[in-house]
């Protein structure tokens, strides 16, 4: 999975821009499979990207359009997908989001993620095989929209970072 070091993120969106441009030749956060959240009143910034969670909530696809690739990445079949939005609803962190009826989710660029190359802060790294559980997060974010889930996820991760800041600066 792609691992985020939230303490290094400056909120610049270079990962987001690089992802969208690599996949589509255009730029827009909706075209990116990694999306940055800036929480201005907390000083916290972080990209949110598929965590390849143990539970694979997105794979509960009614059209059976989602399978896992060799690197654990989420692959969506454009022919089977019926644009129902179940994957978007099921993802606990807002890492899957439909745009113009296509689910956008990290495909690891076939094993060479462009977002990691674009990050000049070293906030992103690739750790093959690493997995996390999002069972608790799932309960917290049920019913939220994707950007609300990302906000919640980054708030929670950012909370830990802010505690560290307080300790270091006091």
């Amino acid at each position, binding site marked *: 999975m792609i691992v985020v070091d939230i303490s290094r993120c400056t909120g610049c969106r270079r990962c987001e821009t690089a992802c969208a441009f690599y996949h589509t030749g255009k730029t827009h956060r909706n075209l990116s499979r990694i999306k940055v959240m800036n929480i201005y009143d907390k000083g916290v*910034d972080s990209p949110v990207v598929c965590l390849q969670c143990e539970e694979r909530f997105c794979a509960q696809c009614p059209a059976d359009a989602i399978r896992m690739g060799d690197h654990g990445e989420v692959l969506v079949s454009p022919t089977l997908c019926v644009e129902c939005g179940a994957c978007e609803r099921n993802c606990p962190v807002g890492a899957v989001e439909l745009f113009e009826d296509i689910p956008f989710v990290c495909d690891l660029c076939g094993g060479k993620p462009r977002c990691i190359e674009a990050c000049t802060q070293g906030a992103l790294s690739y750790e093959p095989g690493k997995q996390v559980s999002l069972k608790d997060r799932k309960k917290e974010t049920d019913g939220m929209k994707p950007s609300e889930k990302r906000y919640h996820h980054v708030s929670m991760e950012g909370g830990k970072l802010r505690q560290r800041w307080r300790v270091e600066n006091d």
Partner: protein
Amino acid sequence: MIEHGYGGRILYVDLTEREFQIKPLKKGWIKNVIGGRAANTKRLLEELDTSCDPLGPENMLIFGVGPLTGSILPASAYYTISARSPLTGILGDSAAGGQFGARMKSTGFDQIIITGRGDPMLYLLVTDSGVRFVQCPELEGKNILETTEKIRKNNRDHSIEVAAIGVAGEREVPFACVVSSGNRVNGRTGMGAVMGSKNLKALAVAGNRPVTLHDPLAFSEEVKNIEYKIKVNPEYDKRHRLGTTMLMKDLNGIGILPTNHFRKGVCDYVDDISGEILADRYKVKNKSCYNCSVHCSRYYICQGTESEGPEFETLCSFTSRIGVNDLEFALDMNYQLNQTGLDSISTGEVIGWLMECQERELIKPEDVDGLNLGWGDKEKVRELVHMIAHREGIGKELAQGATKFSEKFGEEAQKLVMQVKGLDIICGDPRGIKAYGLTYAVSSRGADHLRAEPYFELTEQYDIAEKRFGTPKAADRLSEEGKAELVTYSEKIALLTDSLTICKNIGLCMDVINFENSARLLYYGTGIEYNPDELETLLGESVKRDLVLNEKFGIKTEDTLPDRFTKEPLKEGPTKGSVVNIEKMVEEYRRLHDLRNV
């Protein structure tokens, strides 16, 4: 029809009638102004009734982005707000970075033009499909961060970016600013007051339109070259660590750090208020504008306060410029100024000027509500800033700005205001940076460095100076020679960065943009062909368009500097003995611009 780069549409909003209209952006219209600041000026020149009251409903508040805003071009983050300035009565505009510009671009509107007055207080939510007028009396008095978070939460969309005003804008303080991304400030010339006069609390943007390019592959090759130039720039590490706060020690080192209201250029306690100490003691992380690889901003935490920033101008304005030897005070003031929405330069000037006038007994306590303000009087400054933002007590008088307020007093006090054309001078003593002095004098929005940012004069690159500007002295900061040529060149590059909407620290100071690569970027981006000479010519024409607009506004002020800089030499340090021969440089500048008849 424009297919790439530009959004291709202009949005007109009438707050009084709560109506909006969408018009196409015409290729013939935009080609000669590219985008951003120059396009805003052209719009004002063509469509604004220049006899308007700056704080009246008819003044046009224009938010403008450019063809490459929000693209893969590094730091293509900027947007410019333009209107007739309530502070100066002439052209007002101010740019900011952060995330707002790229998000505004996604609405598909290259300009958002706002007139009228909302009743009750409104905010606008602009998406690619149009405009929502949202009544928000509950946001009155709320600071920028509260406003931003509330708008995001209420709309259940945390991808919305917000440009808002604080209480200073609501109360029409003529140097109130607009703030986006929480702490990114369109600081100068009072655009926040214009917004406040329209009873518009915020402009919120969130669109679904991607930025498309005419030739994405060629564009990305060009971008790779620019990325490389940034990475290998000798200043990269320093800028990454300190950002503009590096200027505290840099300017002090050459004897031009404004201290006690420009009485001195060397500050004895600079080590206590420097960017270095800020980075070591209070900074917890870097912050960045959209798609930038320098990440020059910072987030800090110190007792009782935390925020993004401060930039150099705020740091200097609330330390050495007013005689304060306390970094934590400046960090608190940075938060207060940004969140109430006051321009730190103009606020710092009215306070510094009052300190000097009181020391010289030109203004007595009884003239200013019993106030007796001495150098470095922190607690009083803290109170005054609050009173200025809220227009309370003596703050109401100071909130007119130093130039206007000084008219109540004698000529001597008036002459002590460090301003040109009614806009307060930035933190950089022109006696030791002559091209900057010329820039302050001729800048079309009043005393300001960003119209040219002739950073080159500090580089000591004498060979290049001779080649580019005809004399090695163009790279000698203390010389007046070659400076008109340098400013004439730099102001075109500065305008180019404002049109491509990239950061000036990168585009200009790090020297990554020129007419050649910009012509290519514009072609690969938009499909509109430019050759470098043509680009230079049309930028020169745009520089002059500002002056035509100012004529229409009935400009009465001169291109000059306050007497302090032209007559009083600094008494110590590396700039000791120097004054600015401004007349000579201005004359030369006007000759180069063929301005005898303007």
